[in-house]
């Protein structure tokens, strides 16, 4: 069999799909715009629900690729043209052709500066969940801008999610459990540090997530139901935040050393461009549109074009990898292998 599948995006979804396609005997062209594969997961430290090392997951997926996969790192896919069932991939590298295309372009972090009232990029002790992952990876604990250890940390849920005002009405799914995980990690790394989580409601949808939430409560994390209204910097560079505790219907004001914004998942910029070049549309949130929600989550409305992972909407690693493998099977069907 001499068929080629182009996989656009070398995150966990792209890696898992390529490996599965290899096992089914297909040649794979795996495009990744960054210098390394692994996608967003490369930037995480320990993963929910069981604190597994993120690198380990990426390495495991990458090592199951065979010689049938040609990885083009540092190569940005601009558009895909389809002519008579053949797909021409236009990228920053040399042009190539494939018999099927799988989009695994993933997501981009919401730009927290768009939520200016939370002070990201303005107040030095306001960071994002992604910044905190980097801190855990490099120093094992959260640190303030001046290098000292915080005594009070606040996690703000739903930053750039479930927010009409920034045009992101959807839930990003993984940030609640990420916040709970990171809160536990802070309590473990700095037992003296008080931790507050400001949430709208807690969406603990996956196996083991609810247990993680219980664990956080046992470990003394304070959960406050209420959305932040604004943040202000004090002269000592602490951050004073204002919110409403909606459980007791009272406005409250608290000054903390470090604010962590749980930034949501936004559609990757190139997802829409590539879809458009194929004559396809995105869904109402700007992610890739799928054929149907129940039995066609890896199919698009165009034959030969498939999607998997976070490019069609917020997803955790488990779902991204499962979808990628399901997509491989769908591609196999399409190319006449079954």
């Amino acid at each position, binding site marked *: 069999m001499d068929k080629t599948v182009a996989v656009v995006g070398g995150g966990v979804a792209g890696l898992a799909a390529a490996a599965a396609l290899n096992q089914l005997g297909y040649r794979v062209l795996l495009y990744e715009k960054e210098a390394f594969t692994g996608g967003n997961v490369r930037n995480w430290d320990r993963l929910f629900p069981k604190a597994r090392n993120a690198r380990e997951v990426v390495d495991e997926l990458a090592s199951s690729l065979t010689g049938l996969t040609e990885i083009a790192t540092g190569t940005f896919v601009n558009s895909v043209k389809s002519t008579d069932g053949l797909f021409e991939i236009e990228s920053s590298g040399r042009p190539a052709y494939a018999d099927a295309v799988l989009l695994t372009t993933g997501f981009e972090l919401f730009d927290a500066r768009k939520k*200016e009232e939370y002070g990201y990029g*303005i*107040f030095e002790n306001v960071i994002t969940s992604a910044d905190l992952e980097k801190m855990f990876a490099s120093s094992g604990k959260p640190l303030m801008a001046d290098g000292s250890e915080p005594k009070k940390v606040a996690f703000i849920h739903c930053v750039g999610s479930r927010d009409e005002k920034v045009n992101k009405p959807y839930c990003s799914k993984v940030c609640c459990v990420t916040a709970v995980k990171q809160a536990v990690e802070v309590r473990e790394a700095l037992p003296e540090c008080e931790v507050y989580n400001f949430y709208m409601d807690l969406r603990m949808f996956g196996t083991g997530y609810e247990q993680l939430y219980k664990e956080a409560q046992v470990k003394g994390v304070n959960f406050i139901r209420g959305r932040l209204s604004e943040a202000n910097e*004090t*002269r000592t*560079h602490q951050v004073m935040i204002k919110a409403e505790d909606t459980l007791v219907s009272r406005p409250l*004001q608290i000054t903390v050393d470090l604010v962590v914004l749980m930034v949501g998942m936004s559609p990757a910029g190139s997802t829409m461009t590539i879809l458009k070049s194929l004559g396809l549309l995105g869904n109402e949130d700007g992610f890739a549109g799928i054929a149907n929600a129940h039995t066609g989550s890896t199919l698009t409305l165009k034959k030969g074009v498939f999607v998997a992972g976070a490019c069609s909407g917020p997803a955790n690693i488990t779902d991204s990898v499962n979808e990628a493998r399901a997509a491989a099977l769908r591609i196999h069907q399409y190319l006449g292998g079954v």
Partner: protein
Amino acid sequence: MKYDPFVLPFISGMAFVLIVVIGKWTIWFKGLPFSDKKKFLNGLFSRKFIYASREVVSESMLHRKVFRSNFWLGYMHMSLAFGWFLLIVAGNLETRWYSHGTINPPWYPIFFEFFVHDLKELPYRRFFVFAMDFLLLFVLSGLFIAIYKRYRSGFVGMKKTTRQKTIDKLALTSLWMIFPLRLLAESFNAGLYDTGGFLTNTLGHYFARFLPLELLRYPAWLAYSIALGTFFVSMPFTRYMHILTEIFLIFLRRFGIREKQAHSTFTDVELNACSRCGICIDKCQLSSDLEINNIQPAYFLRDLRDRKPDLFKTETCLICGRCNTSCPVGIENTNIRLNERSIHQFFSANAYEYIGKQEVKNGKVAFFAGCMGHLNPLTIKAMLTLFEKAGVEFTFVDENGSICCGRPLKLSGNFMAAGNLVAKNKDLIRESKAEILVTTCPICYKMFRDDYRLDIPVYHHSEYLLKLVEENKLDPGFSPSTVVFHDPCDLGRGSGIYEQPRRLIARSYSLVEADHKKKDSLCCGGSLGITALSGENRKTLTEATIASLTLNHPEIIATACPLCKKTFAGQADVRVADIAELLLEAVDHKPADHKATSVAMHKPADCLEEVEI
């Protein structure tokens, strides 16, 4: 012979409308508050009277402002109003001339040619005959456009034309009939007695060839008289009352009388002065972008005039003011709407009593960021840095959180509750001992300026920063970036500030303009004036406004309003920044750097332990 029974419909109609108008003017005048009455009487004997008379000519007759909206629409209004007026004047002159100055009965000039068949005795006969025909043609041409507009409103630059009630239709039909009937009557006359000019004589002789003019003459004059009478009688009950009310309104306004914080008979004058021209319907974004077509002043004012206010219409309005600036009659639409809203105040008189006393430091310049301002820390930071760089001795009045300026409450009609907040902020401002007040928020600015009665001057930061730059206290450099300025509703139309922010930007950036700019600028969609608008609809408005702003592909959308900034930032693909941020970047001679070093705050915020406020 100067009388015939056929003039009776005209006479009775005319007498009726005169009595009604004089009665109405009297009632309106009597209903004015004492201070306004005084203004009126003083105005009668001042130069304002001359200005008002001039305005009556230019607006009620020539319709200058309507011309500005669209040439053909202006021409239509002018030919009908001014043309008719000239016809009456010329007719009067003609008859006076003919009867050597004797005073004639009022119908005589109107029906002159019915009574006089031999015009040889009329001096300058050729001139008069020509003039009368010419003016009639002039009016008829306007009428032609009016009829055409009913069916093809796009021709006069309008997408929507106002919907009519039955009595309106009666008035409209009689109005439309007047001039064609006059043409017929005069032509028949001319066909028989050669009394006409180039138009009526030609037509008359043509008709004479196949029509029994002798028989038709009388009915034609009678029909003309009936059309006039019907129109006059219907006037007080229809929008045509506007013709006689607008004149009164112009005088009242020129004498300094305005809408107050409650309906008065001045409001009645305004309601009656609306011609329902429909210009406001086209200008309203709720109509052009959201297909909400029944809330615009044309309808809202009509409902009020008919004493049938509709809560939905009252509430559904951005208070963007586009209808105010485009209204050729100059009706204070948004103020009337707010007063109407205030009839349904939700808050009690002692609302907000729980807000405790706040501390405030002294300074020469009081800086007020406002609630919305606090959602834009970059702007605040830029202002504080600029103050320090310019060596301004300032105090940040609402550093620890704002007490709302009260305008959102005012916009919702809760004037009393707003008043409580006004009092609290006034105390703070007074205590700061500041000599001037500066705010970055046009909403607060308008409230401070119009409702606070402060004894210190109030500046919007666009004015104040420009002043600092012009006094060389700040020295901005140049940037190649292209910037478009968005006029916030409350700053532009609301407060008349259009040039200062542009001048400030143009010093350092290349300024490009939007599709809709200045008076014609669009609302960002974030309006506080409306609570009954879905997020989806707001998004649609914002999209349209961003499209207008990005017409010339600017790199940056500059705003001078924290609410506009937030609204755009959520949706725009280009950078959105406040003019203060842009000025600071220009002063620092460097492009945007979001990790700018923090300023030492003027006053430390208290580090509170989880306090309930």
